[in-house]
């Protein structure tokens, strides 16, 4: 089973505080959607509103064109996996999975067959008789997912389900979730503040900030063509470099000029831009380390982070601004060296005072 989910002009207030402000979003059947944003941006609230655990103040939510925002959680045909797993501590794994099905009066043999099937998918047949207290974090996570699968819901909702797992298990479970999505072909909505989870799992990412949706797009759209300065800064590690700049719009493509006379030729059409102050943005992998004097600017290395396949170079420009560049894994540079920084004009971005972004023409 799978479903389209339509969220139309939804708002949510807690007392005087607005948590979500007139939000609209269409989710296609079989899509894996990730709500990504910092703490307090409203992403969990939106998920809980779809689940029916929070009321919708204004607007409507529909699943397969059928309005569901007035229905109780159990009647919406969705299943949710909680961050804390929310397993019933006094019930065995089997009973945890059966509970929801028993409550709707499903025949015993159907319940048993479903439990068996989902236990097989999740490789947890040997855990069925145990209580949650006897399981490890990763096993509890599986049970929580299993409890969702047995319901054969129209959509799965995941509320930061990986954040209580250790790093290795998190990576493994992430891959398993991706496989599960391919296998079940079900609509999945996943909330996280972890951009790696978002980038790796999502068909489309919904970046949220400050009660609103900042951008909806595929992971690479979000990464390469962030709609706002917030998205550019939030997605990607290390964060995108930002430098205050003025624009020289005399030629076809705009040239960004920094305060201390450094300039970068972008491939952003001058006629698309408007007057005003700008922030120039570029990701670390688009700033190459070259011998001093050969790049757009020179800087002195503050810190080096050797990641193995590449080296992140934190260099300080003459005016004190820090720029993160990228060099090969076995880079010979050392802290204190003076190096040149070569900005890739095709990959540079400009952000206006409102945060709106301009990018190079699409190739």
């Amino acid at each position, binding site marked *: 089973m799978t479903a389209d989910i339509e969220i139309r002009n939804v708002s949510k207030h807690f007392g005087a505080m607005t948590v979500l402000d007139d939000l609209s979003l269409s989710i296609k059947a079989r899509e894996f959607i990730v709500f990504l944003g910092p703490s307090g941006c409203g992403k969990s609230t939106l998920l809980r509103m779809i689940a029916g655990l929070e009321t919708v103040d204004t607007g409507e939510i529909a699943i397969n064109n059928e309005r569901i925002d007035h229905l109780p959680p*159990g009647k919406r045909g969705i299943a949710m996996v909680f961050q*804390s797993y929310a397993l019933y*501590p006094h019930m065995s794994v089997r009973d945890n999975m059966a509970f929801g099905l028993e409550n709707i009066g499903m025949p015993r043999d159907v319940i048993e067959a479903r439990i068996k099937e989902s236990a097989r998918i999740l490789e947890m047949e040997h855990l069925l008789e145990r209580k949650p207290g006897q399981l490890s974090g990763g096993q509890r996570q599986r049970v929580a997912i299993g409890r969702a699968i047995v319901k054969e819901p129209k959509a799965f909702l995941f509320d930061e389900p990986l954040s209580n797992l250790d790093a290795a298990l998190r990576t493994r479970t992430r891959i398993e979730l991706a496989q599960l999505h391919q296998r079940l072909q079900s609509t999945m909505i996943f909330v996280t503040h972890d951009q790696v989870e978002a980038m790796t799992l999502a068909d489309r990412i919904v970046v949220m900030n400050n009660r609103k949706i900042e951008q909806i797009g595929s992971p690479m759209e979000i990464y390469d063509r962030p709609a706002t300065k917030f998205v550019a800064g939030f997605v990607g590690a290390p964060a995108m470099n930002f430098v205050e700049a003025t624009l020289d719009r005399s030629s076809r493509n705009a040239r960004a000029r920094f305060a201390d006379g450094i300039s970068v030729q972008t491939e952003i059409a001058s006629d698309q831009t408007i007057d005003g102050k700008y922030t120039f943005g570029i990701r670390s992998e688009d700033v190459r380390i070259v011998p001093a004097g050969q790049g757009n600017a020179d800087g002195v290395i503050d810190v080096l982070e050797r990641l193995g396949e590449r080296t992140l170079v934190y260099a300080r420009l003459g005016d004190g601004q820090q720029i993160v560049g990228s060099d090969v894994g076995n880079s010979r540079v050392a802290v204190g060296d003076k190096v040149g920084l070569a900005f890739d004009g095709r990959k540079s971005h400009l952000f206006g005072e409102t945060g709106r972004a301009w990018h190079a023409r699409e190739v």
Partner: protein
Amino acid sequence: MDDRRATPRTVLPAASVRAASVDIYAPQWRNFIFVAPFLFFFTTLLLVPLFWGMWLSFHKADTFSSGNFVGFGNYVRLFHDKVFLQSVWNTFYFVLLTVPTLALIGLFLALCLNRRTRTAAVLRTLFFSSSVLSVTIVTLIWRIVFIPNVGLLSTIYGWFGATAPAFISDPSLAMIGIAIATVWWCIGLPMMLFLSALQQIPQDIYEAAALDNANRWQTLRSITLPSIKRTFVLVVIVQIVLQFQLFGQAWLMTRGGPNNLTKPIVLYIYDTAFRRWDLGMGAAASEVLFILILMAAMVQYLVTRNKAGQA
């Protein structure tokens, strides 16, 4: 300072090895002085009277002399005393009346008042407030309620032209009257214990249950009650131990009457030892009560130990 810095570094590992070999959990006899005050009072006020009581129960004793050793004589007399047997029955009857009522009403109140509204907070305080009253006040209040002709109950029944049940003087109702007063007095503690247990249940399992289509009854039966099972057992056993010691209410409301029907064991002990001055027999009755309460406490210990073992 400079000298210290000049100390060769090789000395440090040796010193730290020696330091690490000290077991910080090893017993330190001087720590004993911290528990000594408690042990002193525990011994003089609990252990000594306990064994003295046992010793007394084997002697024919009054306030002037500790008398002769009579073996199990006091116990034999005790179990031939119809009043004592009546008082044991009365006590069990009272425990049976109060403990399930306290547990169930306490649970019911806790379920109703486990919410974050101002009304619930006020009602919680109100229901708990009776617990802080002394037994004298409690019995006074309930005597005013129960007193024939002019009491609150009689007045209310009078409005409807009916006669109020005589909770203090009717032999079949007297113990029920005491039980009502006791439940009213003691309901605060079970309610608070249940409330704290309810508040320990994570909210998200209720949300999971809502997504699992559980209605209110299914949620109560499958989520709430199993989650507070241990507290329920605890409340029942604590109340058994407490209610076995009924004294004040019975003494102040009915003096054990009518016809010894509301005389509990503690009142029998008081009568025997301090009104009839038969200390030996009073001590023997005390030992019987002690064993009854000890059994209840042992059950509590076994139940909680098993639960801990399972978790």
